[in-house]
């Protein structure tokens, strides 16, 4: 979940809950206040009415007048009371026929016993609740509208504002995602008016710049170190040669010299491969030219045939012509490493198949299943065999070349056949 979503989710949840609670609460409280108001107003009317009646008590035919009044008045009714029932200020909400609107409407009414000229009457004062209900409805509607606007507005504001606000952040993030230590230049930062983002950008660019410098130093160091090792190795080998020329070496001495020489050679190969890896890293193979892939394969198979023959391995090739624009040295190393790999790990007396068509080179060999996947195999110094001649760098170099040239390296294993494929 994105940070913005979490942020707005909380905000929204809070406001929705608040609004949902506030709507009924305010509706009920307004209703209650209104009802109280209505009751008060009814009581007030009744009081006023009674005061007026009292002031007319001197009239003789008041009784008749009251009857007439009862008939004429819409909201106030006064009629003689039954003696057996006595009510005092009884409030009720009832539905009555409204003669003005010609419909049954809710009314609030209060009935009360009063004495006019010593005679008991029931005074009923009514008030229509329709207007009040309309008011409540209107208030409710306004509130719902406001809350919808609030939530929608919040959503919209948050989205548009945060998109703009967080833009520098996402830009930095994208740059970081695209950043490759071995390829990219340092990250170019864009200043924003938000302090936090400026801080972040500064830190990020500082960090990447420092990493890059360390990486460059490291690369340079590997290359320099590999170069520096060559001369002592040359001295070492030349001394062994001198030693070899001395007559009357015992067998043990001869064996030791040979072991030393083989070891020196192993170091030399390792060093050479490391140097090659670091040179590919340092982009020293940028020069491209038309390269005839099938020709390279054919000539390499020719020169490798004697080595393969030592293990009674046969190499068959089905090659379509393919010319690509690439660095010739890299293509040669790529093919030679794959072929070496197939010969080294292929089972004896089996066939190594090399096919080239549709810009796809596949090299297959029969062999025992390996526990490694392609990632592990192409890691530096990862090897399953203890063959001292294997440097553990061959496939790492293949991978590096594929990466740097944009080729796709695939590996599959089925029916005890290992297949390495390169899509040019």
């Amino acid at each position: 979940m994105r940070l913005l979503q979490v942020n707005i989710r909380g905000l929204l949840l809070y406001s929705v809950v608040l609004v949902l609670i506030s709507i009924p609460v305010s509706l009920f409280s307004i209703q209650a206040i209104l009802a109280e108001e209505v009751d008060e107003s009814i009581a007030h009317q009744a009081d006023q009415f009674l005061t007026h009646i009292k002031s007319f008590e001197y009239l003789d035919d008041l009784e008749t007048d009251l009857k007439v009044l009862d008939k004429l008045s819409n909201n106030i009714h006064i009629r003689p009371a039954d003696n057996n029932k006595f009510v005092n200020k009884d409030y009720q909400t009832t539905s009555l026929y409204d003669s003005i609107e010609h419909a049954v409407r809710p009314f609030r009414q209060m009935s009360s016993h009063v004495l006019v000229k010593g005679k008991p009457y029931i005074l009923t004062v009514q008030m229509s609740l329709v207007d009040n209900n309309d008011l409540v409805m209107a208030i409710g509607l306004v509130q719902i509208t406001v809350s919808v606007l609030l939530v929608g507005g919040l959503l919209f504001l948050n989205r548009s504002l945060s998109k703009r606000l967080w833009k520098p952040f996402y830009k930095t993030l994208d740059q970081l995602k695209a950043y490759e230590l071995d390829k990219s230049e340092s990250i170019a930062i864009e200043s924003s008016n938000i302090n936090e983002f400026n801080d972040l950008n500064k830190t990020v660019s500082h960090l990447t710049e420092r990493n890059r410098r360390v990486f460059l130093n490291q690369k340079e160091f590997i290359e320099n170190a590999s170069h520096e090792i060559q001369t002592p190795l040359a001295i070492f080998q030349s001394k062994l040669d001198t030693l070899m020329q001395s007559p009357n070496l015992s067998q043990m001495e001869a064996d030791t010299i040979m072991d030393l020489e083989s070891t020196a050679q192993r170091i030399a190969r390792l060093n050479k491969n490391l140097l090659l890896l670091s040179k590919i890293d340092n982009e020293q193979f940028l020069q491209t030219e038309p390269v005839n892939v099938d020709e390279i394969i054919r000539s390499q198979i020719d020169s490798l045939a004697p080595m393969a023959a030592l293990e009674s391995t046969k190499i068959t090739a089905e090659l379509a012509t393919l010319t690509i624009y690439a660095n010739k040295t890299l293509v040669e190393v790529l093919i030679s490493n794959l072929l070496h790999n197939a010969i080294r790990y292929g089972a004896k007396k089996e066939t190594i198949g090399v096919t080239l068509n549709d810009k796809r080179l596949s090299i297959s060999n029969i062999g025992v299943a390996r526990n490694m996947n392609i990632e592990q195999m192409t890691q530096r110094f990862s090897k399953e065999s203890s063959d001292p001649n294997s440097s553990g760098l061959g496939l790492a170099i293949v991978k590096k070349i594929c990466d740097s040239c944009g080729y796709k390296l695939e590996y599959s294993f089925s029916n005890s056949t290992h297949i390495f494929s390169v899509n040019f």
Partner: protein
Amino acid sequence: MKILIIEDEKQLVKSILLALRNEGYVCEVAYSAAEADEKIVLFEYDCILLDINLPDGNGLNILERIKDNKKTDGVIIITAKNSLDDKVRGLNLGADDYLAKPFFMPELIARVSAIIRRKRFDGSNKVVFHEIAVDLLGKSVNVKGKELDLTRMEFSLLVFLIANKNRVVSKNAIAEHLSGDDAELLDKFDFIYSHMKNLKRKLTEAGSEDYIKTIYGLGYKFST
């Protein structure tokens, strides 16, 4: 036959001197670019071994000066920086060969003798050793006038051994010479043994003396 070694690494120079003098070459050494510049103006050499990384200058500049002086000296570049650029530049500047450190001494000796042969005999390029005559251009071998049918491997093996005659040549050096980087795939003993056996057989069948001696545990020696 005079050789100039331009190399600042004293220990390496010592071994090269020992090996080349044993082969009967007259050797001089320049440990710095300044020394080398002096020597190449004053003397003629059949072959110059030139290290590119010198403390006081780049060997390629020395190479330029050698060629500017119209010297016909054959030059072998020796470098710790096995970079293609240097190689291409060196060869373009007129170097005759290029050898990356670390190298096997027999390889150096074979390259030196090839260069000297080319310079001395102006391309006639025949090596005669007692009854064995090797035509390097025609890639053919005669023993007492009878042509041998050698494979490519056997031919280069013979040339390599003759260039290193009377020296012990290790199996590693032979394997590297015959198959370059592919040598790492080899079970060196098996590989060389079969080629060597065939070569010896073909030579002796043609009536040559058996010059190739097996030095147990180490390799072979073409001894007279």
